[in-house]
């Protein structure tokens, strides 16, 4: 065509999950999630307290029920801290995925009227929830130290858990948000499923209390080994590891496989749907 820079013709391929290059993708992602995060935390005076209030209230209720009524916590070292820790971790997963379900549809005007890498939208929701998790973990740390849990070197491994949880939440969010474009009852179904998952993950109960008949079932949930391992590394080194709780490596193959399948499915399906999202809305 012409020798001038920037004048070479390039193909216009239409919308996609990542379109526009990595730089644009990360810029948009960070800007959207930081803006949303700032809005919740600095938009109102009570912003931070409100976002803390939810896990703390839930924690207080659960603590009362399971230490005073069911006495599930008796004999479990640092049960109150463990409960808070688990509630905050699971809170990240359920909040991010539930917010992500409708995210693409609710950003309809942007999706239909700008050239926009579609994947940014659910990802920014997960990232905002991730920032929230960071803020909540600061409070959890205060509680952990206040309840006399002594720091160990294995705390350094905790980011691995968080990273894996983040990947999983992202994959589930991608899958749900693109399914929601086609099937509007995805949101209702997921609300119920998220509640079911709450009980299918060792959040309230320690894994060693699970009858061995149901252990493999609970272990199918990819979140389960993560929560077991997090407890072992952060709260109570005497608690079983994911491997020992499940009874050997082989028992972990199922959740690992499921994890991989969901990640692949989420990424693939979103990518597959992305070019047509604007038309389906």
């Amino acid at each position: 065509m012409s020798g001038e820079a920037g004048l070479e013709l390039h193909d216009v391929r239409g919308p996609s999950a990542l379109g526009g290059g990595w730089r644009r993708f990360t810029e948009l992602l960070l800007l959207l999630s930081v803006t949303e995060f700032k809005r919740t935390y600095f938009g109102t005076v009570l912003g931070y307290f409100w976002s803390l209030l939810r896990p703390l209230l839930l924690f207080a209720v659960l603590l009362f029920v399971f230490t005073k009524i069911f006495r599930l916590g008796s004999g479990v070292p640092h049960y109150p801290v463990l409960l808070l820790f688990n509630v905050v971790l699971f809170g990240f997963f359920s909040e991010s995925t539930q917010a992500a379900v409708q995210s693409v549809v609710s950003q309809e005007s942007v999706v239909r009227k700008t050239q926009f890498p579609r994947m940014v939208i659910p990802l920014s929701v997960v990232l905002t929830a991730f920032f929230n998790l960071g803020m909540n973990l600061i409070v959890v740390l205060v509680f952990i130290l206040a309840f006399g849990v002594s720091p160990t070197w294995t705390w350094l491994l905790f980011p691995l858990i968080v990273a894996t949880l983040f990947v999983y939440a992202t994959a589930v969010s991608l899958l749900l948000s693109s399914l929601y474009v086609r099937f509007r009852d995805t949101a209702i179904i997921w609300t119920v499923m998220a509640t079911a998952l709450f009980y299918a993950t060792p959040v309230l109960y320690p894994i060693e209390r699970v009858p061995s008949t149901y252990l493999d079932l609970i272990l199918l949930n990819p979140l389960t080994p993560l929560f077991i391992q997090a407890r072992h590394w952060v709260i109570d080194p005497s608690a079983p590891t994911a491997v020992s709780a499940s009874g050997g490596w082989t028992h972990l193959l199922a959740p690992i496989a499921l994890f991989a399948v969901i990640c692949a499915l989420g990424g693939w399906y979103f990518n597959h749907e992305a070019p047509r999202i604007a038309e389906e809305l």
Partner: protein
Amino acid sequence: MSTERGKRSNGVRDAPVVIEAREVEKAFRIPVHRIDSFKERVVHPFAQPDYRTLEALKKVSFDVHRGEFFGIVGRNGSGKSTLLKILASIYRADAGSIRMAGRPAPFIELGVGFNVELSARENVTLNGVMMGLSQREARGRLDSVLDFAELEEFVDLKLKNYSSGMLVRLAFSVMIQAEADILLIDEVLAVGDAAFKQKCRDVFREMRDSDRTVVLVTHDMNAVQSFCHRAMLLDNGELRQIGDPEETGRQYLRMNFAKRRISIGEDKEIALVPDILARLSEAWLEDARGERIDNVEVGEPIRLRARIEARDDLESPTFRINFTNADGVQVFGLDHEMAGEILESGQQASVSATVENQLMPGRYTVVCWVAVTRNEEETAHQTLKLLEFVVFGVEGGPGLVKVPGDVGVEIEKSPAPEGTR
């Protein structure tokens, strides 16, 4: 504001191609009965959703050159907005190829992605990044955006506290300050008040004369005639005409306008058909010494001059100058019929009108309505906007015009007769 560089369409055509579309096709599947929940999927596991296929674009090919102001016209549902969305990577074409040089910025609607909970500062950055700038570039243009929108004082005000007028100004300013290589604009002129539309026109005129490439989707033929270097006409997804904007406009008008019948006299009707007949070369106001002026003082005669170029052979054309006030009320009109004369295509007509000024102070718009009788049943017509001006002065009063005359009121001397009580 408009410069002589406007007439360089030949230069533009030699410029390199920046948008190359080849046999672009797009069809939408419109579900007759939509299965949009898992529940329905489960209840009717084998139901195949019924689709009606709507072919929005059928093998459309065209080129746009650098620096060109390119119009896409067609009636609603002709596929013009779909084409723009494909160019903007919002939709994906089913077949064909599109190649583009440089970065496009789509403006399908004003203020896309504005978040009312955020301040203007944050929104301008956000919108800039959405349109493809880096964060630093987006922040860098904040000042020029606010300057153009005249909203510097409100930079930290949340958009929810903006008036709708301020919002439109900000959104429009964001659009024209976009430093994109190719602007893709859809019907922006359709929103906003008269002053805003005027601003749009000024900006479009500047864009036409600048090096920017603009693709404008519209069904305003006046915009096509005054801004576009070239235009194309889409009808039912097919390309009907591409090239000269006036020819495109003419075909659009002929194709789309049902003939409007008006009765003249007894049992006689003629059809009024919109057409492209002429183009405004320039229009201005003069004072008594022949100097050009922008506005007229109350009571001073209005001396209007215009040069109009015929774009078709006009036989016995009628020119009517209409004055409209700021409320859109037509105050008066003056006719001139060039009976028996022929104005050939390309010839200039010089129009001059001197009007005794009885207008109240205010803003007025002057348009020139050109009409040609084609045959006994059909009259072609076009409205050209000439100019806007202000009648200034302190004199106010009721009504639209000041008509000379006296009103007298006096008390009657003799008492009223008893019986009338």
